[in-house]
């Protein structure tokens, strides 16, 4: 791969990079959040959002305005933007976009598999699927009886096929527990995405690899934390850890043996990046939880991605930041509609 992305990046991807930077400039600022927090009703929230980049996206909604309507409309807007980027992209950016949609596709496939096992109609599940994870074979899911048939008939054509390969032996799906299957698929997906970025080299690798390493380690920590007290065994837990992060291999071994939060903390203390994060976790119910701290760090890394030019990480970072913004707005709207304002400032500030 030739070094010097600045020589040829703009030929294929310059228009889209300019566009995504323009969209990023439209993200809500701290002032916008302060205004939203001071709203009394959801109608006020709608009026405030009209002054931002969202514009009149709620104009066609009938009364009464609910939080789920706001959420749906925001998601539609994000999908429109994403589809526009994707349709105008060239290789290898389009493969990058495909990788980004794989995570939503995995969620949708798990939903569909669950639904077909419970003999529910495909139509009602399709409505609940994430729009960014749409793939053409979705409607065909209900013809299969077991998950293995499903794979052989339908999923082998999708980009998800290699991730399923890791979970299968002799053409039969090993994992029968849906949640564990979900996590194993996500692990294979992360590792494949990481390899793709690394092979691409250049600025993209410099930006995306740390972000994906953090995502992998974050998953390892959270899975460990949430598996204390459940029937998930230590060996099972270890098979769910993605291996493309900083914790591989020693940290993951130590994490698999951990039995409570303090042991996990000691594992994190070996790594300079994670020690301050764990120190920032407040004890008990008052302070921040580990997940909040991880969310903040993710947002920080995504914002820093915009400081370099000529790489694909801006698209990934923009999508993630937009999703976080949607979560923030939904959180503030819920606090307002439930009139429970004590924790209204617990959103994650972006800019």
């Amino acid at each position, binding site marked *: 791969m030739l070094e010097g992305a600045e020589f040829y990046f703009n030929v294929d991807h310059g228009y889209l990079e300019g566009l995504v930077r323009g969209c990023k400039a439209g993200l809500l600022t701290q002032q916008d959040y302060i205004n939203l927090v001071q709203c009394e009703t959801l109608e006020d929230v709608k009026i405030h959002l009209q002054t931002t980049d969202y514009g009149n996206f709620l104009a066609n909604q009938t009364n009464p305005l609910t939080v789920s309507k706001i959420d749906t409309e925001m998601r539609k807007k994000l999908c429109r933007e994403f589809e526009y980027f994707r349709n105008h992209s060239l290789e290898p950016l389009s493969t990058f976009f495909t990788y980004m949609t794989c995570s939503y596709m995995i969620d949708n496939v798990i*939903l569909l598999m*669950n*639904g077909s096992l*419970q003999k*529910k109609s495909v139509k009602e*599940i399709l409505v*609940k699927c994430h729009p960014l994870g749409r793939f053409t074979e979705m409607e065909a899911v209900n013809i299969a009886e077991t998950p293995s048939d499903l794979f052989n008939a339908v999923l082998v054509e999708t980009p998800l096929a290699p991730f399923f390969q890791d979970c299968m032996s002799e053409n039969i799906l090993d994992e029968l*527990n*849906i*949640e*564990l299957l*979900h*996590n194993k698929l*996500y692990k294979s997906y992360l590792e494949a995405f990481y390899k793709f970025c690394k092979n691409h080299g250049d600025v993209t690798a410099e930006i995306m690899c740390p972000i994906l390493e953090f995502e992998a380690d974050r*998953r390892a920590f*959270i*899975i460990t*934390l*949430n*598996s204390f007290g*459940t*029937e*998930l065994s230590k060996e099972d837990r270890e098979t*769910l850890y993605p291996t493309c992060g900083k914790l591989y291999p020693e940290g993951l071994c130590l994490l698999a043996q951990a039995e409570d939060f303090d042991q996990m903390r000691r594992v994190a203390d070996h790594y300079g990046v994670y020690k301050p994060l764990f120190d920032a976790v407040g004890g008990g119910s008052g302070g921040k*939880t580990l*997940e*909040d701290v991880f*969310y903040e760090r993710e947002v920080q890394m995504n914002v820093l991605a915009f400081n370099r030019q000529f790489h694909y990480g801006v698209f990934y970072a923009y999508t993630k930041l937009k999703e976080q913004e949607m*979560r923030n707005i*939904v*959180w503030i709207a*819920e*606090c307002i509609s*439930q009139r*429970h304002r004590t*924790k209204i400032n617990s959103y994650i500030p972006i800019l």
Partner: protein
Amino acid sequence: MSGKDRIEIFPSRMAQTIMKARLKGAQTGRNLLKKKSDALTLRFRQILKKIIETKMLMGEVMREAAFSLAEAKFTAGDFSTTVIQNVNKAQVKIRAKKDNVAGVTLPVFEHYHEGTDSYELTGLARGGEQLAKLKRNYAKAVELLVELASLQSSSPGSNAPLLTSSQSWMSESEKSSIG
């Protein structure tokens, strides 16, 4: 003493003895009914007091539970479809028992747990802590609801016999005041 309630009787000594015995019987009956109505009134008032307390508590608990749902959605994303699709058998069930107060049977509901949590691994990758808190809050809400249902179903159950016994008591007391 109104004219209609006069009992026509032949004034003989035997008639007087018979009438006295009848009066005594009526008075004993009235006292028993009074005791029954007092016991039922007491029970009814207790139930009402508990209903008011439980309803106030219910408001708080439901608010807390709805807020913890919002918190869980913030961290874990939208898990509602997963939860709805994995519905299997009920984990919390209700038993109905009978309670006896002054001869009146009142129904009482009691909840019990059965089976394991089928949502143990939901939220494994994100939001597990918030989901656990959410499960606890809603479990508390369900228990309170069962208690409230038990109280509210026993309150009309105790009210009806109370009314009939107090009506009979009043008509009895009228009759005995004549004789």
